[in-house]
């Protein structure tokens, strides 16, 4: 009997995954217009390569990587560049974006290309091929994948951790990828192990996805050391820090990366994407998105071209119900609610969830009653109650002394708070303020 694979604390929000867990992925038709923001990943935004009026084919580069921690952006459809300008970004801001009018008559066949054969490539060449394909982490954070493939000289990586936890309610994106494309996941693992020079990979999957565990287990290649581990169903099981702790017993010190404790974490969908790069030569121009929630007529798992507007995706899923009151990008625990349905699906969009008034009912906020539930929920062992009191008093420097930097903004504290204090929102603001102060000091 192996140890219980779980971390301490965390919360159990209702999962609601049955809406789409069994729905096979299908392809959404091309909308009339595609909008591609140049900032779709962590790191520097891409540099613009096209002008209005330019004709692009599916897979053409429209933005170039600006430095090492950056990736290019590719056209997800054939068409004509209509306009370049500010457009609503799913993070709530406005961002520079390329609008492409989709060519309705194009067969959407990419230009002829050479498919790189990864076996012959040196690690450096694999890293460059992955960067050229614009691959980023598809689990939500959108960190450029190739950066994780090239650890600095002074760190020794011994384990590749594959994240198939998918702990956010409603989302079944990774679930469907694992069930439908397990071979691609293993292919991606093979490329990563080879490039990192690591022999061991562990796939962590929450136990509420037995079909995904089964699919992955039955397809493990004989020559790879890959184990599939069922994890306790608990939010935020899919956070890097939690996953590393659960699967290796190691803790990532604050301000450090998983590499520093010998682990590289990669999401299953990102691995399948790496596999696609070396199978088809196509860059990252489409992704699996769960479109779900009680406010949506036909919850689905879709392959969506990057840049499709939420409006078009929702329309393809039958539209919103009358009682829909909030549209969230990503899962409901950490996602951002959208003011504008013109914002596009970007590389990091794991899901679109339409909530109803029942979920998003405004609640009154009460003073902190020191019940301690947030302490029992915090997966990184902070004291959100005290941090919240400091935040309300504007004592931001003291919050940093109280380990604010360790907070991952998972939202567990806000979720359990009976007084409805917007704890994680206050912490996000305080973290942004700390960042600004640091930059001003430098």
């Amino acid at each position, binding site marked *: 009997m192996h140890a219980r694979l779980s971390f301490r604390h965390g919360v159990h929000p209702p999962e609601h995954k049955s809406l789409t867990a069994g729905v096979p992925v299908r392809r959404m038709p091309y909308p009339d217009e595609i909008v591609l923001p140049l900032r779709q990943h962590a790191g520097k935004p891409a540099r613009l390569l096209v002008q209005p009026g330019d004709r692009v084919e599916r897979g053409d580069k429209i933005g170039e990587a600006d430095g090492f921690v950056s990736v290019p952006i590719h056209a997800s459809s054939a068409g004509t560049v209509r306009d370049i300008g500010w457009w609503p970004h799913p993070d709530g801001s406005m961002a520079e974006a390329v609008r492409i009018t989709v060519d309705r008559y194009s067969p959407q066949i990419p230009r002829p290309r050479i498919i790189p054969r990864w076996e012959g490539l040196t690690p450096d060449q694999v890293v460059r091929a992955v960067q050229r394909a614009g691959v980023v982490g598809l689990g939500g954070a959108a960190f450029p994948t190739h950066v994780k493939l090239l650890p600095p000289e002074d760190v020794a990586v011994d384990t590749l951790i594959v994240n198939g936890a998918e702990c956010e309610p409603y989302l079944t994106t990774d679930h469907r990828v694992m069930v439908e494309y397990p071979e691609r996941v293993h292919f991606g693992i093979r490329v990563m192990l080879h490039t990192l020079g690591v022999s061991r990979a562990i796939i962590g999957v929450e136990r509420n996805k037995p079909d995904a565990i089964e699919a992955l287990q039955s397809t493990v290649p004989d020559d790879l050391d890959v184990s599939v581990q069922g994890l306790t169903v608990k939010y935020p099981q899919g956070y890097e820090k939690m996953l590393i702790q659960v699967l290796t017993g190691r*803790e990532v010190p604050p301000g450090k990366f998983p590499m520093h404790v010998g682990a590289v974490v990669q999401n299953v969908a990102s691995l399948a994407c790496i596999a696609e790069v070396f199978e088809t030569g196509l860059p990252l121009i489409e992704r699996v998105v769960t479109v779900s929630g009680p406010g949506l007529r036909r919850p689905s798992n879709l392959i969506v071209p990057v840049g499709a507007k939420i409006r078009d995706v929702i329309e393809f899923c039958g539209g919103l119900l009358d009682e829909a009151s909030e549209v969230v990008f990503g899962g409901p625990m950490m996602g951002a609610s959208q003011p504008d349905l013109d914002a596009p699906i970007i590389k990091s969009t794991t899901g679109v969830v339409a909530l109803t008034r029942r979920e998003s009912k405004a609640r009154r906020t*009460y003073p902190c009653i020191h019940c301690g539930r947030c302490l029992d929920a915090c997966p990184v062992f902070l004291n959100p109650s005290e941090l919240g009191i400091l935040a309300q008093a504007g004592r931001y420097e003291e919050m940093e002394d109280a380990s604010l930097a360790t907070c991952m903004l998972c939202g567990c504290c806000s979720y359990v708070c009976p007084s*409805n204090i917007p704890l994680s929102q206050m912490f996000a603001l305080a973290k942004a303020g700390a960042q600004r102060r640091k930059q001003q000091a430098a």
Partner: protein
Amino acid sequence: MSETSRIGSLQLQLRASPHLKAPDTTPRIMWNVVGSLVPVIAAATWYFGPSALLVISAATAGALLTERAFAPPGSLADGSAAITGILLGLTLPPGVPLWIAFVGGAFGIGFGKLVFGGLGQNIFNPALLGRAFLQAAFPAAMTTWPGSPAAWGQLRGDNLAFPFTSPSVDAVTEATPLGLMKFESAPTDVGSLMIGATGGSLGETAGIVILVCGAYLAVRNYLNWRIPVSIFLSVAILSGLLFSLDSTRFPSPLFALFSGGLMLGAMYMATDLVTSPVTNVGAWIFGFGIGILVVVIRTWGGLPEGVMYAILLMNALVPFINRATQPRPYGSRGTNAGREAEA
């Protein structure tokens, strides 16, 4: 923190994550505590007649009216003032004049809670602070335990005494089990203690009822079970030690657990969310501290009962307990920091 934007006929809300919320709210917790006290009030009425209802109502009225008068509008709805009033009423002797109960409720809310800034800000349990005030201001009324009258419907003592007159005590008084034990070394049968068929404060006698109601709250996670458990453990162990030294002078552990205000104090007073520690390690320390103080005061103090002072003393230490038992953040110490962090 929400905003709406209109898209066609559709109103979209903009809110910060998380977009889901656990069902419990502060008023829901508070009103559940009030609800769980109904059987305790019923038991008090069963044993002490209409006096019980009158005294509890008077204390609650004092608490609610003070909250209504001085707290921000709408704060009555959160239920916390009702808890204070009911709990104070349950700690009063059945024969106490109603105006005294009313003053106690008003003092508990006014000086126990509102002067600190209202809900969540107070250091001491407001109900116990109200009782401590009454104990100091009206010692005679607070220590008069009238005996059972001829009929259930008859008032116990001079409930209706006019304010600031000396109550006309013509009823026969009886001693509480703790008083009997302390001053006459006469233990009361533990069975009667458990079901509450003894003299004492209104809501403190029916030990079993309080235990069951408190357990309900613990199961629903409306109180931290570590606090009553640690109080019971420390009281049982300490009084067990004393009992084994001299079983004629000292009460048995079961007597210690079911006599006086211990049950009500451990289940309802010490577990007040606002005035108990936020950390679980802190809860253990807090509970053990109360248990030890209770036995020390009962055994060596001048008063027969010490639960109230034990809890108030430990309330004062809560900020220090919180400070000393902060959890250790993830990643701050080697690989086992998280697991060592707390019990």
